[in-house]
């Protein structure tokens, strides 16, 4: 049961392994705080949609499956959007149109289709949590790299007399600005994905080696 949760974190990480939900990943990963906000939004929507889709999975006829899922998802997205506008205006502005685009985020409908559609409510909720957190972790990693290299800062929430921005000494004065732009986003995710693929290849090699040495003994 618990593996429904954990698989989303690493083994089936939506960004690096399944390669879904890329648009917001790349677009909002300019600042760490955006990643956190976006992640929270996605987790919320994912939870809601997976919950309802699995709840209603026997009620919804095949022909209107997609429209129904979309309505469910869109409702949660609109809620997120409205709440953000009301209570987290800067975040809402930074994320721009991508809050609304959570609707079409490929992970969410993907999970509804691939998982919630034929799993129980509790499994689906766990899956949603795992996928959502996996997504957030991926997003966080990308935005951390991009913000540190591309702006020389790490932007978090302001509290007290801390303005929410950590400035990295040397880089802050002359950051590699392109990393913060479109190019940087694509390159960073490309190299991260390459790195994960390399890890996977290495792991496979290790397994073979293990088998070989076992034979030798």
């Amino acid at each position: 049961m618990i593996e429904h949760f954990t698989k989303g974190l690493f083994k089936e990480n939506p960004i690096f392994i399944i390669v879904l939900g890329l648009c917001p990943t790349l677009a909002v990963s300019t600042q760490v705080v955006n990643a956190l906000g976006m992640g929270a939004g996605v987790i919320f929507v994912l939870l809601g949609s997976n919950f309802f889709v699995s709840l209603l999975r026997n009620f919804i006829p095949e022909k209107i499956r997609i429209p129904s899922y979309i309505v469910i998802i869109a409702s949660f997205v609109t809620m997120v959007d409205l709440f953000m506008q009301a209570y987290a205006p800067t975040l809402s502005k930074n994320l721009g149109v991508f809050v609304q685009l959570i609707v079409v985020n490929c992970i969410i409908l993907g999970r509804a289709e691939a998982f919630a559609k034929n799993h129980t409510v509790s499994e689906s909720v766990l899956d949603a949590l795992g996928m959502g957190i996996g997504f957030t972790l991926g997003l966080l990693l990308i935005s951390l790299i991009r913000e540190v290299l591309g702006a020389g800062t790490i932007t978090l929430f302001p509290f007290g007399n801390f303005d929410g921005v950590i400035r990295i000494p040397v880089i802050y004065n002359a950051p590699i600005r392109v990393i913060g732009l479109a190019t940087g986003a694509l390159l960073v995710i490309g190299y991260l994905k390459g790195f994960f693929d390399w890890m996977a290849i290495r792991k496979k090699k290790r397994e073979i080696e293990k088998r070989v040495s076992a034979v030798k003994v």
Partner: protein
Amino acid sequence: MSMEKTEQLLVTTSPHLHDRMTTSRIMWTVTLCLLPAGIWGIYVFGIYSLAVLASSIGASLATEFVITKLQGQDTLYDGSAFLTGLLIGYNMPPSIPLYIPVIGSIFAIAVVKHTFGGLGSNWMNPALAGRVFVMFSWTGPMTTWLVPRTRGIADAVTGASPLGFLKTGLMTFSGKVSGPLDFMARKGYPFTSSDLKVTEWLNEHVLSLWGGHMQNGYVDLFLGNIPGSIGEVSALLLLLGAVYLFAKKIITWEIPVSYLGSFGFLVWMLGGLRYGAGLFHGDVLFHLLSGGLILGAFYMATDMVTSPLTGKGQIIYGIGIGFFTYLIRFFGAFPEGVSLSIILMNIVVPMINRYAQPVLFGRVREARK
């Protein structure tokens, strides 16, 4: 000698004869042809420019070394990484902080070249991609130019490059002048005394024979007495090197001619409008000699790896670059458009290669039948 004494024979497939040209020879020859222009750059901009070149080349070779070590290739000594580093250095302003060429080189070699498989596999010009990368990252330092020492001013004075001067100047200009050099003269852009003298002499003794007249400024542009990137300023020395490359058949006419031709035509046709001079009054010579156009057209657009394979394709490619260079120079946010145009057209090269292929022998008639 009896034949029983033959040592182990070399067995390879045909052909058993080979042309003398090799990859490393090509690369080193191009390097050689580029050197004079670089030496001129170092001379006029001071010894710090040498440090810039050294750091870009050093970083380029070091990156190549590390990666080829990891991948078991051996392209370190074939000159391609050296050439990439050299060209990045040539495209840097002389006063640039050294970390910028270093990062540019690392980006060029590691990301643009070796991620795709190393020499020959990259589809984008590494040096130019590296330059554009740092240009967009550190726009300020990348657009700060030194005044050459041949202007008789002490070292390390910054000044605008001709194109930069025009770009900012023209933003608030509406009126009528005969062209860019006239505009610059009126706005007080200085030309050197040698330029004035040579131009005067030419006007008196040569051009007057045909009743022509030349404005001040071309000579400075031609010789490289202007602020600009280290390796791009001396059109003369670059052209001399290019002549050698043509003679050695290392570069062919298609790309430079179609590039300069299409760009020149657009400038001639439309370039005058901005100065109120009307259609077909653009100053082609000024635009050909300023900025990195000569360097770009003869040494960078011609990079074999990233340009189309066939003559037909190369002409399409050249025209494309010419068009984008015109567009960016005259309308874009940047004064210069060579690097961006070339890497833009690099994107299209695989597509061009797909369609611009030679006519197969014996297929023409078949088609006619």
